[in-house]
């Protein structure tokens, strides 16, 4: 399946744009997504941490991703 990953803050700079499209297996998990992202964008591994959000909620590594989900990469937050 093809998924789109939204990017914000430093992840937008690492991707060089505000979203990327990726090809993942149909039963892919958040863990699989992070593996693919880090392979294509090794600078992600230098971040203090980062989370994946699925449909506006923080996701766990074992959560399954579906094709129409809204996926976003959440680098360390710093609001307020």
């Amino acid at each position, binding site marked *: 399946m093809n998924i789109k990953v939204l990017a914000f*803050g*430093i992840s937008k700079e690492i991707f060089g744009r505000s979203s990327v499209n990726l090809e993942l297996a149909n039963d892919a998990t958040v863990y699989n997504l992070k593996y693919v992202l880090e392979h294509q964008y090794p600078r992600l591994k230098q971040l203090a941490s980062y989370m994946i959000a699925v449909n506006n909620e923080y996701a766990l590594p074992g959560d399954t991703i579906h094709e129409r989900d809204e996926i976003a990469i959440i680098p360390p937050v710093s609001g307020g």
Partner: protein
Amino acid sequence: MNTVIKIFSAPLNIQSATDWIMSPESGGIDVFIGTVRNATKGKPVIRLEFEAYEPMAIAEMEKIAKQAFEKWPVQKILIHHRTGVLEVGEIPVIIAVSAAHRAAAFDACRFIIDTLKQTVPIWKKEIFEDGEVWVAAHP
């Protein structure tokens, strides 16, 4: 619910926040105003840039307000957050909490700003004379 949570790209208005939070039932109102400081660790800051993942940021702020209502006997909660370019002295965030008695308002207000800084998907970049840094991005 007695909650207002908004993200603005234009300057925040303290008066409109306090106007909304005032009510005859409340005996105490706690207002936190975050402001852009002119230096970080002694290094002059020129300006800040804030970016939000807005739908999720609103959802996370709503969760924080709900938790505050569960933990303390508070009456109204307002959270206003700015995005975009902010100069020194401008206001990125206003949090206002009303309660019958001051202790709940103080405690809930502090909980809301502390949790917001940990969980809400909003990012700030500090712009210095010689470069720029996304705050907290790197260890």
